[in-house]
């Protein structure tokens, strides 16, 4: 029992030290007193798998994105790439642009996150022909 508590407290301390600007998706904040904590990689992999579903439907895309934005983190570029490809499969360009807007909004005061994400997503954006909100001029009111 003590070993389990120690293991949990160690992982808790690990996530506490991540107070510098995070580019990585962190664990959803749940206080379990027992049970295994999901690692960042597992979290990312789960979401990438979710969006990579070949026959994903529009509702699932919306639900996934809205849930993901609800978490206290900025999603990893690889999750966003999967989401953008899902938009492509659904022939929904507007949602793809909206996702980019949401990422920028989610970064809040950490202005360096959005350019980083765009940089990582550039190959995908070029491949699919997705414009950034800045290119379209809708990033200003």
């Amino acid at each position, binding site marked *: 029992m003590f070993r389990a508590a120690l293991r949990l407290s160690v992982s808790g301390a690990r996530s506490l030290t991540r107070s510098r600007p995070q580019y990585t998706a962190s664990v959803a904040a749940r206080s379990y007193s027992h049970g295994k904590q999901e690692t960042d990689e597992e979290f990312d992999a789960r979401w990438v798998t979710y969006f990579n579903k070949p026959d994903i439907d529009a509702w699932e*895309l*919306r639900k996934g*994105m*809205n849930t993901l*934005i*609800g978490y206290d983190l900025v999603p990893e570029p690889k999750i966003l790439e999967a989401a953008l490809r899902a938009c*492509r499969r659904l*022939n*929904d*360009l*507007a*949602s793809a*642009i*909206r*996702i980019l*807007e*949401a990422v*920028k*909004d989610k970064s809040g005061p950490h202005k360096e996150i959005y350019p980083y994400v765009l940089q990582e997503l550039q190959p995908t954006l070029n491949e*699919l*022909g*997705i*414009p950034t*909100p800045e*290119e*379209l*001029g*809708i*990033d*200003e*009111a």
Partner: protein
Amino acid sequence: MLATRVFRLVGNRALSTSICLRGGHGVAKVEDYTLPAYFDRRESPLPDIKFVQQLSPEQKSLKEKEKGSWAALSKEEKIALYRISFKESFAEMDKGTGEWKSVVAGIFFFIGFTGLVVLWQRKYVYGDVPHTFDPEYKQKEVQRMLDMRINPVEGFSAKWDYENNAWKK
């Protein structure tokens, strides 16, 4: 037959709304507020429905074009597609309204108005002050206080020079 008519009314909104048949009387009218609504929210970037429900023919053909390569779309077409699905962009939904200026202006206005009311009251409502406020009465009052040696150590009378009958410099 009735059901399909209602479905066509609903259009491409959520078809999951249930049509209730009440005691064989027919189909209940689907109220607007029961259907999924559109709203722009930061925390929920993809609303349940598209903003524009009835597409014009150009918009319909644009939607068809969307099924092809997105790189083939012009910038205006991409913006048009965005505006079909969404009412306001994040920047537009987040911008301030400037309402605070109206609020502050209102505050100043009503404070000013209250000032006018107070002035009018002074003139037309309140009677005279008591005679104890007259300058002559006040003088006699001060003299009495000095005679009584009010606060002679550090306060009132301490500031009076009794030798020279004047206030201390």
